[in-house]
């Protein structure tokens, strides 16, 4: 499918017209925000009759709170953030890919196997993740456990904004981190550390970011929500197409998008549309890891938060397999 085909307005019956057309969505500058950035820049929102302002936010907590109080209509969110019973019930009808996450180790942990370093260490190593309720926290915990390290006793895990991680690793303020693209590649390129494992190696089906809205917003704007999901599905298909690789990298490198050097961007290390269906079974992996971490996830949360039916409705209206 060419861009022209994708960006053509879909024929919508009158009763499916969006309840609202002017929307504001928050995003964090990461490669997996690509479907949102592409939808805005390549006209997929416009093709659905939506006028979307993409707002670059400084923290996940900002997106969650702004969506909760209605200052944003929705946004790029961490799936576990929705499952961790936020102040307002939030739902997702679209996953934004499975991320391209990596664990990077600094000098202290690169000299010997991690178990040996810890056994001989006076102070436990410090690892950084992007948010407490994030796939990064759980990937790191699984990786540590697999390497014979107790994530609760043997190491300290803190939250550090990803843009600060490479520098803190280089200066030894932290000893390792788990984050999404482009930050692991950036740290390795700066010589701050080495890639020890990728998220795909640790848990290939682990869900990562989603397009989240409040349950109330979804109830009040069903047609807008469908239009939004359709636009982002089409943007994800565009982003996955190898023919669009150079254009996608250029879009992401823009200072208002992800804003890192194009040479560090490898968007095709992850798939956007292929993992767009938010499967409740994927949420089960997260819920199990959240419980193991003592993050008190309600087992019933997945059925409320994950709405594969919303994805299927949008995909069916686009003539895609569901």
């Amino acid at each position, binding site marked *: 499918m060419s861009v022209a085909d994708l960006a053509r307005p879909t024929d919508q019956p009158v009763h499916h017209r969006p309840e609202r057309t002017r929307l504001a969505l928050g995003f964090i500058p990461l490669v997996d925000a690509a479907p949102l950035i592409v939808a805005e820049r390549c006209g997929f929102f416009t093709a659905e009759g939506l006028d979307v302002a993409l707002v670059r936010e400084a*923290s996940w907590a*900002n997106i969650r709170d702004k969506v909760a*109080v209605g200052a944003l209509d929705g946004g790029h969110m961490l799936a576990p953030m929705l499952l961790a019973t936020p102040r307002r019930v939030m739902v997702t009808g679209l996953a934004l890919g499975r991320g391209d996450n990596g664990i990077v180790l600094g000098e202290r942990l690169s000299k010997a196997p991690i178990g040996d370093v810890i056994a001989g260490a006076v102070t436990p190593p410090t690892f950084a993740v992007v948010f407490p309720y994030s796939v990064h926290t759980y990937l790191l915990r699984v990786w540590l456990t697999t390497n014979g390290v107790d994530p609760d006793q043997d190491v300290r895990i803190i*939250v550090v904004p990803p843009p600060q991680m490479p520098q803190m690793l280089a200066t030894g303020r932290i000893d390792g981190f788990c984050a999404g693209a482009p930050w692991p590649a950036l740290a390795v390129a700066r010589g701050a550390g080495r890639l020890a494992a990728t998220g795909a190696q640790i848990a290939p089906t682990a869900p990562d970011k989603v397009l989240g809205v409040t349950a109330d917003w979804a109830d009040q704007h069903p047609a807008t929500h469908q239009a939004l999901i359709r636009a982002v599905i089409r943007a994800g298909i565009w982003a996955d197409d190898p023919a669009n690789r150079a254009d996608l990298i250029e879009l992401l490198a823009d200072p208002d998008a992800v804003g890192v050097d194009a040479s560090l961007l490898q968007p095709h290390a992850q798939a956007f549309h292929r993992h767009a269906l938010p499967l409740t079974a994927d949420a089960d992996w997260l819920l199990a890891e959240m419980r193991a971490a003592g993050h008190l996830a309600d087992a019933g949360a997945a059925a409320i938060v994950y709405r594969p039916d919303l994805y299927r409705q949008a995909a069916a209206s686009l003539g895609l397999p569901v």
Partner: protein
Amino acid sequence: MSLRVLLIDTDPDRAAAMATRLAEEGYVVLRPADPAVPLADSLRDLAPDAVVIDLASPDRDTLEQVGRIDPGATRPVVMFLGHADEAALADAVSAGVAAYVTAGVPPQRLRPLLDLATAQFRHLQRLRAELDLARQTLVERKTIERAKGIVMAQRACDEATAYAYLRKLAMDRGQRLAVVAEQVITVAQLLDV
């Protein structure tokens, strides 16, 4: 007992004003040591009772974790707000600020701190908007003076006549005086008169 508040603000001028305001209200103000130090370490070392943070700071996510994934943290940080405080939270978010108290501090002490931070952010927003307006007015006044000078030279008239001419021009065109003055200057520059 006065609360020890860690203040994190990306804007140094606003931070200074906020620190003064907090001190006036009897809070003890702490500032993070060094941007190169993870905030999680500053929290551990300074052990504040509360935190006020600018929403433009990426460090906000660090406050979400303390006590949840960092068992070494002495005092978990929480944003205690009941449903009755929903409007206060919305107001704070729209002003661009958030506040937290650490475990052990009575949750009812958060609300006055959050309200103060919100009011202070809004106050500064208003001051800056007023300053922008004052600057704009000053620039416009200078533009009108220059245009008046051009009209006086071109039409060999006095200042009052030149001003009346510009005003009539603005009214006839349905444009602001400053806009017409700008056009007069542009035309004069193009014609080099």
